[in-house]
């Protein structure tokens, strides 16, 4: 049973973690965004300050609210404020 959540990190979030991808284990029936973010902030303390200004996506869709659910096998991404152009 796959319980792995794939987390993509960009820009300052990537720099805070030192990698562009980490995998986190979550319960097989899923987890909330709030729980995933708390987990990441615990494991990567430098990420904590960055997370407050980030948007999140799940499988390529923006996540609405901290209570949204993610499930094993999902791709969860952390987007610091955009700065293209």
């Amino acid at each position, binding site marked *: 049973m796959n319980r792995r959540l794939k987390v*993509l990190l*960009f*820009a300052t979030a*990537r*720099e805070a973690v030192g990698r562009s991808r980490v995998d986190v284990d979550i319960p097989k029936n899923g987890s909330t965004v709030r729980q995933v973010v708390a987990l990441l902030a615990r494991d990567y303390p430098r990420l904590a300050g960055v997370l407050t200004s980030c948007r999140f*996506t799940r499988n*390529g869709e923006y996540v609405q609210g901290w209570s949204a659910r993610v499930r094993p096998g999902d791709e969860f*991404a952390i*987007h*610091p404020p*955009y*700065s*293209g*152009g």
Partner: protein
Amino acid sequence: MQALKELGAPGLGGIVLFVGRVRPDRTRLGRVRALTYESHRALALEEFRALEAEARERYEVGRIVIWHRIGTVPVAEPSVVIGAASAHRRAAFDATSMLIERLKSDVPLWKSERVRPGRPLRRRPSRGPARSAG
């Protein structure tokens, strides 16, 4: 330029092109010599499609070009090119302006600075007649 060719459909009288280039800004760490761009690629392309659809819905535009470099872009080179062609120039101006604003706020693209560290200003110890500093 390629973008102009792609915008060059017959019947579209007005083409507006925005080219954004890397500026040699000064930062705390020195002068920018390049920017490195990264993207959440699949989502960025999806947003490009959505922005193009919105521009078409709001303005009477024909062809649209949205193009952004990823990776390292040296100072003075273009990082972004946006263009719109339309029968009436106002629509092309409005669409191009909207697209660059929204690209900056809505598309998962990030820049980071690659700087040349500032060298401290100092005279070399001189011996003999004065010479211009190297």
